[in-house]
């Protein structure tokens, strides 16, 4: 099964995933961080689709829908948290969240 890997797609997905991950590590704006997570999830989606295509299996595509739903739910919560935070501390970025440490 691994003989005819669609490497290009998989690599693209991997690169996207890494970009998302690195983006989360280097960006301080919570919103951007959430977006980075979304990017990672979408990279995974791409992977799923690719594999689904490769395996000639529908479930790869179906899973993507699930992931999208989950991602949406996550974003909802994330945005709510961001809103709550910026209401209390306007303009705060991720690095300002340092009350808890040690």
């Amino acid at each position: 099964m691994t003989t005819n890997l669609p490497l290009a797609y998989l690599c693209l997905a991997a690169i996207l995933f890494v970009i998302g991950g690195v983006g989360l590590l280097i960006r301080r704006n919570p919103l951007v961080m959430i977006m980075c997570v979304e990017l990672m999830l979408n990279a995974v989606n791409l992977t799923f689709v690719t594999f689904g295509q490769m395996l000639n299996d529908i479930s790869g595509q179906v899973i993507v829908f699930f992931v999208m739903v989950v991602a949406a739910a996550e974003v909802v919560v994330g945005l709510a948290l961001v809103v709550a935070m910026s209401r209390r501390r306007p303009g705060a970025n991720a690095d300002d969240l340092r009350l808890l440490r040690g």
Partner: protein
Amino acid sequence: MVELLWLIPSLPLAGFLVLLFLGKRIGEPVAGWLGTAMVGLSFVVALVVFAGLWNQPEHTYELSLFTWIPAGSFQVDIGFLLDPLSMAMVLFVTGIAALIHLYSIGYMHGDSRFPRFFTYLNLFVFSMLMLVLGDNLVLTFLGWEGVGACSYFLISFWFEKDENASAGKKAFITNRVGDWGFMVGTFVVFFALGTVKYTEFLPLAPGIAATTATFIAFMLFIGAMGKSAQIPLFIWLPDAMAGPTPVSALIHAATMVTAGVYLMVRINPILAASASWLPWTIAIIGCATAFIAATIAIAQQDIKKVLAYSTVSQLGFMFLAVGVGGYSAAIFHMITHAFFKALMFLGAGSVIHGMHEEQDMRRMGALRKLMPVTAITFLVGWLAISGVPPFSGFWSKDDILAYALHKSPVLYVFGLITALMTAFYMSRLVFRVFYGDARWGESADAELANLDAHDQSATVDHDESDAAHAIHPHESPRTMLIPLVVLAFFSAIAGVMNLPFTEKLEFLDHWLEPVVGANQAVLHLGGGQLAFELITSTIVALTGIGLAYYVYLKKRIDARRIELPFFANGWYIDQGITAFMGGIGRKAFEMIALFDSVVIDGAVNGVGRATRGGAVRLRNVQNGYVRWYALMIGVGAVVIMAFVLTQVNF
């Protein structure tokens, strides 16, 4: 009759128990009488048993009460072995102890811990009897340690003074050094012979390897050195004089300190089986002890110190006798010494008592007239120890010297020199205390101050010297005098026990024959040699006395040329050991204690601190930055990926 043996130690034990629990209630005179009565009864029983022992085969009787320590093949009974040797010991121990108990009633009069004193004394007598009667090494060790403990109690009886307390402690610990040898010796005996019972292992002794025998004997000899104050473990005995004088008389002169001699005589088959260097060692150590202690005694100012060093010296003689194979001579001298040394200590006690606790001979003098009984009895003791015929000491010392000559002329010469010194320092003591000018008046202080400037070792307590001004010496009460008289009598005549003239007169030798006979060195003294030795001894003794006469009464020779500081300070042996223990020894101990707190405890605490410290540092990782946390996850993921990829065989 001999079955009453168990009563001998039991009576003092009973006395001890009664006094221990009821002593305070009984109160002063009765407690003393009770204690005396117990020991006196014990003596009477001993006489009865003695009479009974004649009928026993080989004059030996064994009595086992109960098993003390049963552990497989190691069985130790509380059992008594009554043979000529222990019988002799029992008789003179109980006899002298009874007299000293009696004496103490007078001496300790008015002391706040009067009943306690007799409690200890009774316990001591009990322990001493266990020591001599025990039929095995472990039981002997029980008595051995028991007398040590009693000695500790009694030396530090007046514990309010720090010197007394220290002296007691020193005695106990020094003895313990010897006990180490005793214990190891016992172990080897059991290891090599499978039993610690005298009647079982002594007969096997001829069969064992010489090296083993030597080791056993050497270890036990170390024990004996501690108890009997031989070089270098003699340092405790002079200090032990801090105790009440009856204690010095009973324990540190007559009985306990002879335990080492007793032990050596008891194991004579093993000594005989051991390598020849060992008896030589014992003889040399004994001789050296006798000699060194005599030199020290010459320069002492404290009356009890003189007697103490004289005791050490005489014990040296006894060891010399053991070393040269004269076991019966050792016992003979032990007995005569017990009489005259006890006598002199008690006499000294009487003097001290009469002088209101004054012990410095420089403040005495001319007491002859004020204390006639004390003086006369003391003179008997003096003549006995000096070796003036026909007093007992002459015969016993001569016996030893005869054995020494048989072994080696060198030992004999040293023995003679020591005898000379003995006569000299004892005469010095007598002349300064009972003759000459009365120096216990006011005039003494100026002289003493003058002396002090030269003699640092003078043990003068200036605080008390004020009290000494009002001294009015007086004779002691009758309870103290009776023992003196009795002891003086025996000191004078005890020589008849073992007169060297014919075989028949050597009662003691015959009596001890079953115990020591096989290993006793054989002397064949011709009449000429005997006469030579007796005359030499007499001359030596008289020379010593005469010399002292010139020095101390006639004052022809400056005493300071003889009383060298080197002697006064006991050859600096005690100071040396004290300095070593207090200096390097203490340092070493402190280093180890420091090691404990720094290294061992420090390691434990260090582990704790390191854990904590590591954790505190690790805590910095948890810095609150969410992106940092994400990085940790990322790095963790990368590491896991890396690991996983190593598992892949591409």
